[in-house]
C-alpha cells in the first residue's frame, strides 16, 4: 500500500518536471533577402568580441549528376584555392593572420563554409566569402591539385579504413532511386573523368546568391553589418540557370535487404539500417528519440544489454543521419570474441522487439527527455553552432525560427508515440542488414 503511494508521488513529481517550460531563452535574429536572392540572417550577441561569417550553399551530394558523384565535396576543396583577388593558397592565411579560424564541410544536402574572427574583422570575412561567391578560381591548376587530394582522401577515409565503406554499402542498398544512394565522397572515377568545364558549370549553377544563406552572428551592429553586406554581396549577380533539386521519392524498401561484406578487418560488425521519415516530420522526432533510447551512447539499451550485461558485444552504437529527405537510422554492433554474428543480431532484435511491444517506463522516458533537452541546449551554446543551426533551419525548412521551437517538437513526443513509430518503422521489411566479416572468412 505504502509502496503504491510512493510510486504515485514519484510519477507526479516527474510530471511536474516535465511541465516546466522547455526553453525560455529565445535566440533572436533578423533575416531578409538581397535583390540577387541571397538570404541574410543576422544574429547579434555582443557578449564575446567575435563574429562568425558563414555561408551555407544549398548543394550537397544529392544535387549531383549520378555520373559525376563527389562534385559537391570536391568544391568544398576547390573553394580554398583562391579567387580573382586572392592568390592561390592564401585564402586561409588571411584568416589566420587576423587571429581567426575557418573551415568547411559537405553533407548530402548542403555545403557549409565559415570563419570565426575577432569582431573588428567582420569586413575581412565578408570580403573573403563574397570573393568566393563572385569569382572563385575554378581553373585547371586548382582542379588538378584538388583531384589528387580528394582521391587520396577517399583512399584514406574509405578504402583503407576498417569499415570505411559502411555508409557506401548501406546507402546503396537502402536507396534505389533517390541520390542518397551514393555517398558524399563519391566515385573517384567520376572526379577523374570530369572536365574543367563541368566544374565551371557546377559553380555557375550552385554557387550563386539565390542558392545560399549568409549568416553573420556575434558582436555586430545590425545596421552597419547590413551596409557592409550590401557593399560586398549586392553586386554579385543572381544565377541565371535552373538549380537542380532532386524530387524523386524513394519507394518502400519492399522487404528486408541482407548482405555480407568481406573487408580487411579483424572484428566482424553488424549494421542495421531502418528507413526513416524526413527531418522535420512528427514521426522523425519520435524516431530520433527512439534510436537514442536504443543505441545512443553508453546508457542506451543496446549498449547496456549487449555490452554490459550479456557481454555479447564489444561495442554498440549508432550514427545520426539527419537528412533533409527520408533517410535511415543506422545502428551497429561489434561482436565480442567468440560470439557469433547471428547470435548477436538475435540479441539486438530482442531489444528492438521490446520497444515495439512495451511502453518505455516513465523514468526512462524522463531521462530520455532530459538527454534531448540537454543536447539541444548545448547545441546552441557556441556562437558557431548557433550560426550553423540558423542556416540549416532556413536552408532545409525555410523556417529559421525552428532554432527556438524544435525542442517543443521533441517534448511533444509521448511514450505512446515512441511505441507507435517502433511498430511502424523498426520492422524487418523496412531494414538493411549488413554483416562485415574479415576477408579471411570468405569462401
Amino acid at each position, binding site marked *: 500500500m505504502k509502496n503504491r503511494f510512493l510510486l504515485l508521488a514519484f510519477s507526479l513529481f516527474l510530471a511536474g*518536471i516535465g511541465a*516546466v517550460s522547455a*526553453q*525560455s*531563452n529565445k535566440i533572436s535574429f533578423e533575416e531578409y533577402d538581397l535583390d540577387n536572392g541571397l538570404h541574410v540572417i543576422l544574429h547579434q*550577441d*555582443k*557578449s*564575446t*568580441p*567575435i563574429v562568425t561569417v558563414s555561408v551555407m550553399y544549398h548543394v550537397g551530394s544529392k544535387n549531383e549528376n549520378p555520373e559525376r558523384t563527389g562534385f559537391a565535396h570536391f568544391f568544398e576543396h576547390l573553394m580554398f584555392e583562391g579567387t*580573382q*583577388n586572392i592568390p592561390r593558397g592564401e585564402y586561409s592565411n*588571411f584568416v*589566420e*593572420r*587576423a*587571429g*581567426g*579560424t575557418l573551415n568547411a564541410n559537405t553533407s548530402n544536402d548542403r555545403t557549409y563554409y565559415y570563419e*570565426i*574572427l*575577432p*569582431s*573588428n*574583422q*567582420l*569586413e*575581412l570575412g*565578408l*570580403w*573573403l566569402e563574397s*570573393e568566393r561567391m563572385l569569382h572563385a578560381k575554378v581553373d585547371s591548376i586548382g582542379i588538378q591539385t584538388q583531384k589528387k587530394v580528394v582521391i587520396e582522401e577517399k583512399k584514406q577515409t574509405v578504402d583503407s579504413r576498417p569499415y570505411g565503406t559502411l555508409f557506401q554499402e548501406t546507402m546503396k542498398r537502402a536507396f534505389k532511386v533517390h541520390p542518397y544512394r551514393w555517398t558524399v565522397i563519391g566515385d573517384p572515377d567520376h572526379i577523374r573523368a570530369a572536365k574543367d568545364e563541368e566544374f565551371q558549370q557546377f559553380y555557375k549553377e550552385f554557387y550563386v546568391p539565390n542558392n545560399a544563406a549568409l549568416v553573420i552572428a556575434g*558582436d555586430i551592429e545590425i545596421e552597419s553589418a547590413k551596409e557592409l553586406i550590401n*557593399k*560586398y554581396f549586392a*553586386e554579385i549577380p543572381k544565377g541565371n540557370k535552373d538549380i537542380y533539386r532532386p524530387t524523386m521519392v524513394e519507394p518502400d524498401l519492399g522487404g528486408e535487404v541482407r548482405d555480407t561484406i568481406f573487408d580487411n578487418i*579483424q*572484428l566482424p560488425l553488424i549494421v542495421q539500417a531502418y528507413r526513416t521519415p524526413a527531418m522535420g516530420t512528427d514521426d522523425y522526432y519520435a524516431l530520433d528519440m527512439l534510436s537514442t533510447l536504443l543505441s545512443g551512447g553508453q*546508457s542506451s539499451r543496446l549498449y547496456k544489454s549487449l555490452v554490459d550485461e550479456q557481454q555479447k558485444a564489444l561495442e554498440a552504437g549508432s550514427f545520426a543521419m539527419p537528412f533533409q529527405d527520408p533517410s535511415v537510422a543506422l545502428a551497429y554492433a561489434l561482436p565480442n*570474441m*567468440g560470439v557469433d554474428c547471428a547470435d548477436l543480431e538475435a540479441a539486438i532484435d530482442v531489444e528492438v522487439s521490446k520497444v515495439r511491444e512495451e511502453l518505455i517506463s516513465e523514468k526512462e522516458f*524522463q*531521462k530520455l527527455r*532530459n*538527454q534531448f*533537452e*540537454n*543536447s539541444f*541546449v*548545448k547545441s*546552441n*551554446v*557556441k*556562437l558557431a553552432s548557433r550560426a550553423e543551426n540558423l542556416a540549416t533551419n532556413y536552408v532545409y525548412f525555410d523556417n529559421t525560427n525552428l532554432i527556438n521551437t524544435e525542442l517543443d517538437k521533441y517534448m511533444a513526443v509521448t511514450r505512446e508515440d515512441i511505441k507507435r513509430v517502433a511498430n511502424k518503422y523498426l520492422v524487418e521489411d523496412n531494414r538493411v542488414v549488413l554483416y562485415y566479416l*574479415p576477408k*579471411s*572468412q570468405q569462401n
Partner: protein
Amino acid sequence: MKKSVIFILALLVAFNINAQLDRSTPPKPGPAPKVNIGKAQTFELKNGLKVFVVENDKVPVVSYTLSLDIDPIVEGEKAGYSSIAGDLMGSGTSTRSKAQIDEAVDFIGATLNTSSKGMYASSLKKHSDELLNLMTDVLYNPSFPAEELEKAQKQMLTGLKSQKDDPKAIASNIKSVLRFGKDHPYGEILTEASVEAITVDDLKSYYNTYFRPNVAYLVIVGDISVKEAKKQAKKYFAQWESKEVPTYKYEFPAGFETPKVVVANKDGSTQSTISLSYNVDLKPGHPDAIKARVMNSILGGGSFSARLFQNLREDKAFTYGAYSSLSSDELVGTFNAGANVRTSVTDSAFTEIIYEMERMRTELVEEANLQLVKNSLTGSFSRSLEDPATVARFALNIEKYNLPADYYETYLEKLNAVSTADIKAMAEKYLTPDNALILAVGDVPNMRASLKKFAKDGKVEMYDFYGNMVKAMPLPADLTAEKVINKYIKAIGGTEAIAAVDNYILEGTMNVQGMPLSMKMYSRRPNHQCVETYMQGNLVSKQVFNGEAGKVVSPMGEQKIEGEMLENMKAESVMFPETQYAELGYQLELLGADNVDGQDVVKLKVISPSGKEQTVFYSRNTGLKVKEVSTSPQGTMASTYTEYAEVNGIKFPKKMSQAVGPQSFDITFESIKVNEDIDASKFDI
C-alpha cells in the same frame, strides 16, 4: 580609332569598379573591439563564503564552481594524498554510493567533478536544485570508501610504472626536485612509497581541514539572477561550517648562479627530450604579464612563425617542434624551452635555443612579427570568452590576485599597446639562460660529453626518475659481458640444472584494462612454445611455435606467422638462450653501471642474430636479470622481473611487469612446473 575606344572603355570600367569597391586588397580591421565581459556581482555569506554571480542568459544552464583559495601544502611522505582526497569526494557519501551519485547526475544530464581545490557542477537551470542537493551532499558528507582509495592507489601506481620510462615524466620530476627542492610544495614528487602510505584518515583530515567556506569562492555562472543566486547560496551553503584554515609561507627557491647541466637515462632512446628551464618571479596580473606573454609567443609560442620553431624545425630539421612557455604563478613562475631532438644534435639544439633567447635580448623584433602575434592572441582570447567558465575564472582572478576591476575588459587594449621596445625589455628581464637548468633525457653515453660546454665548471650530473643523483659506480676493470652472463646462468641455477630442464609450464594471471586474464605458457626443448590466454575460463587466443612454423589462433581465425615475425618467434622460443648465446650468434656489449629501482645493476646491449637490440639489466648483487628494454616502431617496451623463486633447482621470476607506451600490466605466475608431461598436441601447427 577602334583601339582608343577600347582603351577608354577599359579606363571607364576600371574607374567604375574603383568607385564601387576595391576588391583587390583585403579590408582593414576596425578598432580593437572592447570586450564585454559579464560583470560579476559579489556577496558574502555569514560563514565567510564569497559568492560571485555572472549572469549569462544565452542558454538555460547554470554552473557552480567552488574554489578553495588555500596555500599549497607540503605532503611529505604521503605525497599525492590531497589529489586523491579531491578525486574521491564524489565517490560516495554517507547516504549515497558512487553508483547512486553517478546515476543521479546522469539522469538530469548534469556534470559534477571534484578536485583537491574545489568542485564544479553544471546542469540545466531547471535541474539546479537537484544538482545542488547532490553537490552539497558530496561537499558535506563525503565518506571516502576504503575500496575507492584502494582503486585510486592502484591506478596511481600503474601510472607511476609507465612514467618511469616516459622521458617527459622523468624530466618533470628532475625539474621539480632540482628547481624547487624537496621541501617546497612544487618540488614534491609521487613515489610508490608515498602513494602506498596514504590512508583514509589522511583524506578525511585533508577534507576537514581545507574544505571550509571561509577560504572558498563560489562562482555561479549562467541563466540566474543575483536574487535567485542569493537565495540558493543561502539555502545550500549557509550551513557549511567555517573553521580556521592553516596558511603557509615559502621562501622563493634559490636559483642557479650559473647553468646547471643534468642528464637522465632513457634506455633504448634515439631522441633526447631537452629542456632549458628556470624559476621566474612573475605573479598573475603583474604589469609585465601581458608583455611577457607576447614576448614568449614570438620566441616559442605555438605558431608556425615562432622563432624556435623556425630555427630548430624549419631551418635545422632537428625536431618536429620546439616551443617555449613563460607562466605566471603566485608562488613561483616558470620559463621553459624544450623539444624532442635526435640524440646527435642534443647539444646543438641547446645552442640554438640559447642563441634565440640572446637574440630576443639584444635585437628589436620586427613590427610585422609583433602584429601577427598580437592578432593571434586577440583571436584566441576573444574566442575563449565564449566559454562561461572563462568569464568565471576572470572574476575569480580579479578577486584572488587583487587585479583592477577592468583588467580583462581592457586586456585587448593592453595587448595592442605592446611595443617592440617592450618586447626587448621583457626579454632582458625574463630570458636568462645563464641561470637555467639544462636537462636532457635520453641516451646518456651518446650525449653527455657534448653538454659539458654549457656548464661553467664542465660538470654534467646524472639524475634518476626520483630526482636523486646517480653516483658513478665504477665497474671492475676486468668485467666483460660474458662474465655478466655467466654470473646470471649461475644465479638461476647453473648449467647442470638448466640442462636437466626438458620443459616447463607457467600459469599466471594479469589484469588488462580492468579485465582479468589468465595465461598458460608451455615451453619444451629445444624451442617449442605455446602461449594460451583465457578470459573467464574461455580460451581467447593461442600462439604456437613448433621449432619451424608458427601460428596465432584467435576468434577471428587462424593466422600463419611468416617473415620477420617468424624469425623473432624462433629466437624468443629458445629455452634459456643465455646458455647458447655464442652458438646462436648473439652479440653482447657491456654498457656500464646503472640503477634500477634502487638496485645497482650492470647494463648489457644484447643483439639477436636477426639484429634486434635489447638493453638488459643484471643485478650486481644477485646476478639475476631485473629488467629488459627494447624499442620497436610501436614504442619502447620495458619488462621488469621480480620475486625469483626456485623450482627444481632453477630460479624463475614470479612477477613480471611490462610497460608499452602509456600502458603497463603485471603478470603473476602462481604455478611454475618443471619437467611435467606436456601433451604433445599443444605444439601442433
